[in-house]
């Protein structure tokens, strides 16, 4: 379980606001941009960062994040490279908690035990594995627990309520609530997401962060009123893509500043 993750949610929620969780893909648009982007996200006001681990077959992702995966895979970015980026970002002062997000196969290829141990050593705080539901995650969850990193489970609108308690029970930092049936960057977060969060709430005291279909200031604010965390992914990738590579850090930072209405401490 990651103290850093729990502390950050507690701190943000203590200030009367939802934590802002920002996603970037490691190696996108270019491997050497990732560390500056991570620092830029923190400077812009991100409370938690999800660092995407590239995979050739991102079957839950929409076109935007698929493209980012393709670019990063083509650049040869591996899970080991992702850990190197985390280490480098930490050495340059990145203080916010960071969660690695991706698909199961690159972790299996690296070795589940080793992935958890090396992630902890590199300064990562947890994992979100899109195609590894808790039912199949026994070994990996054990490895995460043994190394003090968090396994973050997902709950979807189709998750039966009797399952929510079981999914929530494996969480130790926060729960990722998928707002809508669909891929990332697809449909907008629906108005009834508050009901979904309330249903999950009956099964956990941990923070619930809502992602999928959240991009505008208005959506960030609306989700922030019903959940302890707001996750934005495709909109950040789109901001990276929206101009020259040299300008990508500035664009991402000002996007985060705009939608959060704040900027990071010491930025």
């Amino acid at each position, binding site marked *: 379980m990651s103290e850093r993750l729990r502390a950050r949610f507690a701190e943000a929620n203590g200030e009367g606001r939802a934590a802002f969780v920002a996603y970037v893909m490691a190696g996108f648009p270019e491997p050497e941009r990732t560390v500056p982007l991570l620092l830029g996200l923190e400077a812009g006001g991100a409370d938690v960062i999800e660092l995407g681990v590239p995979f050739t*077959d*991102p079957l839950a992702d929409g076109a935007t994040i698929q493209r980012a995966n*393709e670019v990063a895979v083509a650049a040869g970015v591996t899970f080991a490279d992702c850990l190197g980026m985390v280490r480098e970002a930490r050495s340059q002062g990145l203080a916010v908690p960071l969660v690695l997000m991706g698909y199961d196969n690159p972790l*299996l290829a690296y070795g589940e035990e080793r992935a958890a141990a090396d992630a902890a050593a590199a300064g990562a705080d947890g994992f979100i594995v899109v195609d590894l539901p808790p039912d199949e995650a026994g070994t990996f969850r054990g490895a995460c627990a043994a190394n003090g990193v968090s396994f973050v489970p997902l709950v979807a*609108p189709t998750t*039966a309520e009797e399952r929510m308690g*079981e*999914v929530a029970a494996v969480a130790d930092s926060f729960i990722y609530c998928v707002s809508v*049936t669909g891929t990332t960057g697809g449909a907008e977060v629906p108005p009834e997401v508050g009901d979904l969060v309330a249903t999950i709430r009956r099964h956990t005291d941990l923070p619930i962060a809502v992602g999928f279909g959240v991009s505008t200031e208005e959506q960030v604010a609306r989700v922030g009123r019903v959940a302890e965390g707001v996750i934005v992914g495709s909109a950040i990738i789109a901001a990276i893509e929206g101009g020259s590579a040299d300008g990508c850090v500035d664009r991402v930072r000002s996007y985060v500043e705009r939608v959060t209405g704040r900027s990071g401490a010491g930025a």
Partner: protein
Amino acid sequence: MSTETRSDLAPRFGEFGGRYIPEVLVAAHEELEEAYDAARNDPAFTEELAQLQRHYAGRPTPLYLAERLTEEVGGARIWLKREDLAHTGAHKINNALGQALLAKRIGKPRIIAETGAGQHGVATATVCAKLNLECVVYMGTEDIRRQSLNVFRMKMLGADVVPVDSGSRTLKDAINEAMRDWVTNVRTTHYLIGSAIGPHPFPTMVRDFQAVIGREAREQMLEQAGRLPDVAVACVGGGSNAIGLFHPFIEDPVRLVGVEAAGEGLSAPGRNAATLVAGSPGVLHGTRTYLLQDEAGQILDTHSISAGLDYPGVGPEHSWLKTSERAEYIAADDAEALEGFQRLTRSEGIIPALEPSHAILPAIRLAEELGEGGDVLIGLSGRGDKDMHTVAEALGVTL
């Protein structure tokens, strides 16, 4: 977790199989597993399927003794299980009928499917036309180019064929796109997976629907040959026709040989599709199985002259049959497939699809080794009309 299994169906084959899926799809898989478990034990369902297999799909398909080929080889008798004579020209109809009936039973009016060679797409579009279901087929643009005739067939049957231009633009990417549709429309949609791949219960369910091939062949061998075959040979892409042929022989003293696509050669990573021969275990498309992957766990590109074998994964039950050594897996390259194709066409007047063409030369070699008195059974999974352009191109002929 207690919600994982509410049926008698085992979720794994040894260490392979399972359900590695996004949370949004978990409920649909549980529903499907329960519905399939109930259906397979419901005489009304099995009888309706049997009737359709007989009167609509044309089952049982013949078991045919390839006499001239047998004479030419001068060894064991060579038998062909003629799935090419099933309605729509391949074994794919067996599974499409079963799953479409199941989709109706669970009240999903919309069917999505992936297709490589187009045979599964055609079978799905056919069954959807018959059962009045909406049908969307995802197909890689590279496969659309190779299989334009099947694309037109699907459209004539009322299906919406969606081109997939990501990744390698073949079967793997069509599956990714179908999965993306499914996570979006899961409440109204059944994903009619075309091979014995994917998350539990698909590998088991597809195998059960395809096992009609082996059950018939086993009975027909006993009746026509007076004995079981010494060896059964089938091509393996995802592996649905092979598992359908093999499964009823598993308890018998019958050698089982799967033939994968070696494409341009096993020493050329990215230029073959011999998953079990050249790959290693991992997780793709919801199941733990052998994969063609690099050291970092990225899925490799594949190549085969036959679109239907052009896949970097394989059904998890085949992975288990390999590691438990109950079945053997070998590979035939593009040139061998072309030679097998021509051999069967000339000797028997049967034009096989390029997929089962991979099994012909290996079967001939097995017949030679066995010698007279032996029997070799080949799963002839489909007919070759769809491949005429590809074969002509490979032989340097302009049509």
